[in-house]
Structure formats: C-alpha cells, structure tokens
C-alpha cells in the first residue's frame, strides 16, 4: 500500500510542481522512464511470485535507467540514435508486457 502511495505521490508531484529538466538531459528522460517502469513491473511480479528482494530491485532499477540512457547517448554520438532508441523501447516494451501478463495471471487467476 505504502509503496503504491509513494508512486502516486511522485506522479502528482511531477505534474503539479513541473520541475524543469536541464536541457542536456531532456532527450534521455523518456527512455529512462520506460526503463524504470520495466524495473518496476519486474519488482511487482517478483513480489507476487514471493521472491522479491530489495537489493535486486534497487540495483536493477538504477542499472536499467543508466544503461538505457547510455545506449541512447551512444547512439546519438554514432548517428543511429533514433534506431537504437527504437530498439531499446521495443525490448523494454516486450519485457513490460510479459511481466504485466504474469501479474495479471496472479491477480485475476486468469
């Protein structure tokens, strides 16, 4: 309950206070958010499977965000930024969907 509350409070804070992001980081923020969502869905699924581990969650969250931003940054330097970010979004999207399906199976037993 409290973790979900923290998540909702974070979203509301972002929408209400509208903090400005430094311009150099702006292109990487959407990909970082998708990577963070992937770690989040993995954590929820692990929780429902009964094997949740806090250290694994924090490490996977931080590393996902950093690696995704790094890959997009590298892609921009090499000139394949658009294609690499598409690839990252595809992979993260597949993982999110897989975890969401598993969560759905747990919650609805269907």
């Amino acid at each position, binding site marked *: 309950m*409290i*973790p979900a509350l*923290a*998540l*909702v*409070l*974070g*979203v*509301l*804070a*972002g*929408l209400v206070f*509208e*903090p400005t*992001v430094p311009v150099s980081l*702006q292109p990487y*923020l*959407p990909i*970082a*958010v998708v990577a*963070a*969502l992937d*770690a*989040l869905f*993995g954590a929820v*699924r*692990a*929780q429902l*499977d*009964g*094997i*949740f*581990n*806090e*250290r*694994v*969650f*924090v*490490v*996977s*969250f931080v590393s996902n965000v950093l690696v995704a931003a790094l890959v997009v940054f590298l892609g921009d330097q090499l000139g394949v930024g658009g294609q690499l970010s598409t690839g990252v979004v595809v*992979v993260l999207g*597949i*993982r999110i969907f*897989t*975890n969401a399906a*598993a969560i759905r199976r747990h919650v609805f037993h269907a």
Partner: protein
Amino acid sequence: MSIGRAQEPRRDGSMSLLVDMSSTALDPGYEEAARRNPASEGRHGRRSPAILLALTLIGLSTGVVAVQTRRDADKASSVRRALVADVQDRTRATDALSAQATTLRAEVSLVRRDALSKNAAGRALAAQVALLELVTAEVPVRGPGIVVVLEDAVSAERSASGDGRIFDRDIQDVVNALWAAGAEAISINGQRFTSLTAIRSAGDAVLVDLRPLASPYRVSAVGRVDTLEPAFVDSATARRFKTWTSLYGLGFSVTRQDALRLPAAPDPVLRHAVAVSPAPADPAPGSGGSS
C-alpha cells in the same frame, strides 16, 4: 510466449532472441537471491526507504516527462501557427503589390499612348504596340468566341488508372486545336494564355503556370465565331473528345458566346528595352502647313 516455452529445446535459433527476452523479463536476480537465502525477504522489505525513494523517483520522472511532452507539443503547434500567419501576411502583401503593379502599368500605357500621339511616326509605333499587346496577352480582350468545357467523369465512373480524369495533355490538345482553328486569345478558368504559358500535371491537379485548376475546365477562345467554331469542332481533337464522352464519361461541350471577356496575363516580365529618340511634334493643326 510463456515461461514454460523457454524450456523446450528449439531447433532453429531464430526465435531465441524473443524467447530470451520474454523468459528473462523477470530479472533472474530475484530467483538467484531467493535461492541463496530463501528465508529472508517477506513483507517488511517492501517499506524500506530505498524502495520508497525509488518509487517516488519513478513517479516524479513519469510526471515530469508527461509535462515536458505536452509543453513541447504546445511549442511546436504555436511555431506552426506563427509560420501560417506569416505566410498569410506575405501573400496579402504580394497580392497588394501585384494589384498596384497592374494599376501602374495601366497608367504607363496611357502616358505612352499620349506621348506617341504627337507625330505620325509615333502613331504608327502606337498602332504596332497595340497589336503586339493584343497578341502577347498584355491587355484584356473582349469579343465574341466559343467556350469549350472539359469535365472529369463523375467519380463513380472513374477507374483506378485515372481514365475518367482530364490530364494536362488533354488541355494542351484542346488549346493547340483552338489556336490552329483561328482563336485570337484563349483563357482557361479565368487565366489568360500567353506564348510562354505551361500546362502541367502535378499529382491529381492540373497546373497552368504553377496555379492549380480544378474540373470543370472552361476554355474561352475569342475569335471569328463562324470560322472558329466549325474549324474546331471538325478538328481531330474535338472528334476524339466526343468519342471519349461516351467511352469514359468525360464532359465535353462547345458553345458560342457573344461577349467574352478575357483578362490580361498577369505580371509580364521586361527583358529588353531600346530608347526611342524623341522626334519633333507635328505642328498644331490651325497654324498652317499640311498635317
């Protein structure tokens, strides 16, 4: 793509990428950690400050990205609106200047006629200029003539290959046939033809001098009606069009008109000018000497 599928051995390696992606969707680290100390994580680990901080960060960044995306979209649309307003302003300014140029040209022509009427050589020159102005479409024209109307087939009859549409070469054929039949001035949908006018197609539209025209196309030709009309109607072009009206459903009609008004061609370009040396004016009629 359930986890169970990943366990069976696959003979082709091509599916392994997607299978790996979906089977490792749950970070294997969780299973390893659970294996290593099965007694540990239960419910209390969920409230740890690190987790709450991570969740707050995720929510915050999601909100920030949503706000940022909306802000960028607003900026893009306001830039577009500013550009559209700019284009409309410039178009209005250009139209105003074009109208001013037409007025000034008319003034110049009056002044020139006045200046040339001072002596016989000038009057001959003025007559030559008047004829040339008519032929090069610099002046509007009024007179009897014929109107040829070309129309696309009704859309139900059009085939996919565009058989029911009027193309640029159809209009070219009609205009050439009209000139050959003796037309003195031709215009289409209010646009006057000069010897430099281009008729082209761009996609679905027919462009006359880069202005798009739409069906129906009214081609007005001024000339001697009793020779112009029979000569055009008997021409190969007109006969071909008549068969096409029944084959493809195109519209084609030729009618006489007693009083056609054709506008002048817009914006003539001055390329070459020679100064005329001023000649002495004729003596005034009442002061003796023959005029």
